């Protein structure tokens, strides 16, 4: 019995954090975030070298062959630094979709490119995530039509993965005829969302037969866990910065962290947030190794961490006072990162709904 990250997992997270803190200090973050595409070529190439993109790609295809827990540890580092890099969808979900639904030929065709940082796959869902806005897609043979909003990691994609309501997933090139991608800057300048419009675009169905909604649902589950991990990292940064600020800032002749009002606010954040880290680990580990619990924990971790993230974001900003509200300290990048994670792939309401369905408390 050992409930902890492995030494390798911890070290990888630390090296990611170190790299990102180094390459993405506040001024660089402002610059990289400004275009709002969630993509910076320089950062991307550096992360390719660190092996981020191939984390889940099997070794035979040039990756590290690791699991969702490793991805969660990485996501915590990305959230902690508000990294301007596609990950949850293009790296984790797309790779898992290929591994769980794709044919050997498809895996061989795409996975090496993912690991090498040459392929970036935006991911859109038709239904299933409870998202607002249009989400319909139909397949006519291998021709895809429809309109899907809220696609993730589609600020600079080479390909698009579309998840259909019947449990199939299809891949298209982002530059194919009949494919239109309108990427939008969001409240979170480090990640965009995109509207995808398909008009009879040539598409490739993953796998030769429909493996049913469960396989695709497991891809969604993994994505939710990874977004929750990102929120834990971002919220931890907000807590750390609030504590540091409270030790430094003086008002009424005292360091503000010595006032119970501020001290207790920090204690509240820590009490909420700290168990979330273990929760993410368990949920991620369940994706890799405890199939019976995987879905329920994925729903619950996305919902609960989403709620805690919002509270921590608010309280940390309050502890910073007026400075927290300005752009000067850049604290809002993390506030908005947390807000984005909360909504993407289904907000807490939707995730709890899914958790109720999973437990048979209601019908879908």
């Amino acid at each position: 019995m050992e409930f902890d990250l492995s030494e390798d997992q911890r070290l990888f997270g630390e090296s990611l954090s170190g790299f990102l803190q180094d390459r993405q200090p506040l001024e660089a973050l402002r610059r990289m975030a400004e275009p709002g595409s969630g993509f910076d070529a320089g950062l991307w190439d550096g992360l390719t070298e660190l092996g981020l993109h191939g984390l889940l790609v099997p070794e035979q295809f040039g990756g590290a062959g690791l699991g969702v827990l490793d991805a969660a540890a990485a996501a915590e580092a990305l959230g902690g630094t508000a990294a301007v890099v596609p990950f949850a969808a293009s790296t984790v979900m797309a790779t898992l979709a290929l591994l769980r639904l794709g044919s050997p030929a498809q895996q061989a065709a795409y996975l090496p490119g993912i690991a090498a940082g040459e392929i970036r796959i935006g991911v859109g869902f038709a239904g299933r995530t409870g998202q607002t806005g249009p989400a319909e897609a139909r397949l006519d043979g291998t021709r895809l039509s429809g309109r899907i909003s809220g696609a993730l990691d589609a600020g600079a994609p080479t390909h698009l993965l579309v998840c259909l309501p019947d449990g199939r997933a299809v891949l298209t090139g982002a530059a194919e005829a009949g494919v239109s991608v309108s990427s939008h800057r969001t409240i979170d300048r480090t990640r965009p969302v995109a509207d995808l419009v398909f008009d009879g675009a040539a598409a490739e169905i993953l796998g030769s037969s429909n493996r049913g909604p469960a396989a695709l649902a497991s891809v969604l589950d993994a994505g939710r866990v990874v977004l929750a991990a990102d929120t834990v990292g971002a919220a931890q940064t907000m807590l750390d910065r609030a504590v540091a600020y409270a030790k430094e800032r003086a008002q009424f002749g005292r360091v503000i962290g010595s006032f119970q009002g501020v001290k207790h606010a920090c204690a509240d954040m820590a009490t909420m947030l700290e168990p979330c880290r273990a929760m993410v680990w368990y949920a991620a580990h369940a994706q890799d190794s405890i199939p019976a619990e995987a879905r329920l924990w994925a729903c619950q971790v996305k919902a609960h961490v989403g709620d805690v993230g919002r509270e921590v974001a608010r309280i940390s900003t309050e502890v910073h006072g007026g400075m927290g509200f300005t752009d000067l300290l850049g604290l809002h990048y993390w506030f908005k990162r947390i807000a984005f994670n909360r909504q993407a792939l289904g907000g807490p309401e939707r995730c709890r709904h899914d958790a109720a369905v999973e437990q048979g408390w209601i019908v879908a």
Partner: protein
Amino acid sequence: MDLRLSEKHSALQADLQAFITRYAAEAPKAGGGRKRPDARTLDWQKRLVEHGYAARTVPRAYGGFGAELDVVELAVIADAFVQAGVHPGLSNQGISMLVPTLLEVGTEAQRQEWIGPTIRGDVIWCQGYSEPGAGSDLAAAQTRAELKDGHFIVNGQKIWTSSAHYADMMFLLCRTEPDRPKHQGLSYLILSMKTPGIEVRPLRTMTGRAEFNETFFTDVKVPAENIVMGRGQGWHVANITLKHERLMLGDSNRLTQRLHKLTEMLQRLEVGGEKLIAIPSLRDRLLQLQGEVFAWRAHGLRLLTDQSRGVDSGLRRLITKYGATMLCFRLSSLAVDALGTAGLPYEVESETVEGDEATTWHVDHFYDIGLIIGGGSSNIQKNIIGERGLDLPREPKMIGVAAGRN
């Protein structure tokens, strides 16, 4: 308990209807934001003052309408414009904060000079209170003003000066008696923003807009007579001004309007063919918020009655800023949750761009954090509620902490 309007107030309501019917076409568009009022707005403002729908209680001698204070009248007037969606006249810091302050403690000359142009919108003011190093501790202001040859020479920095980039004038809290205890060393000056040595830099917030400014003072000369009350009385004057700001911030009408907007949206938008209001968890949150807004709405009526009687509402008033701003945040939180991924796209380049529904809610949501913090953070508010409202003891004095300066 009588929620009906008196005959006098019903008559006022009828007058307002007639006025709005007749003149609404001349009104500028509501909103406006970060710019000087244009000519159309100034004309409208003058018409409102003339009819007593703005500056109603400002004496005629200073250019106002000269009515007795009757807060129910003021509520009836505000309500009529909100209901009709017609511009209710200017509401800036000069009108809402400086004018009442001068009426209370200004000299006759100051009143004569500033009140008329201010209420007509010809002179725009900004507020010079907060400093980067002081935050909620306003009395810790370090901006210095030294009297030399009939002028105060001002050096220092202010923050959160919201309309400084187009204001004509500023009211400024600064330290004139550095050797006296903290609260007794301040003075309240008024000065022209055209005085040499003033630099205004825009201050961007988390909304993405530069809603505020930082203002820097380098050897800025202010005539000695531009002081309100005496030297060392700045803290007293500033508190008069703040009293009026706090009343503005705790407005329960805003909660009601926001609840309506939110309810309407949940009834209109759909996800997967289902109205948002049909989703139990969203509906339940809306119902909880509705209950809270109802409570504050009723509470607002009680405050109005207190005011109409000239009663100090005490605790009832002290809780409003903290309670209402937190509730505002929770209302906008539900809105952005309900919008989901479709609400994430966000472009706020300038205040002149009209945002879509989602952007508007997100701006509100971010701004709500600012409102929780601004004008005294929640911790400060809870101290005020505890100490002034519930008579709980203040923190004991600390060992090794200078009581006066810091």
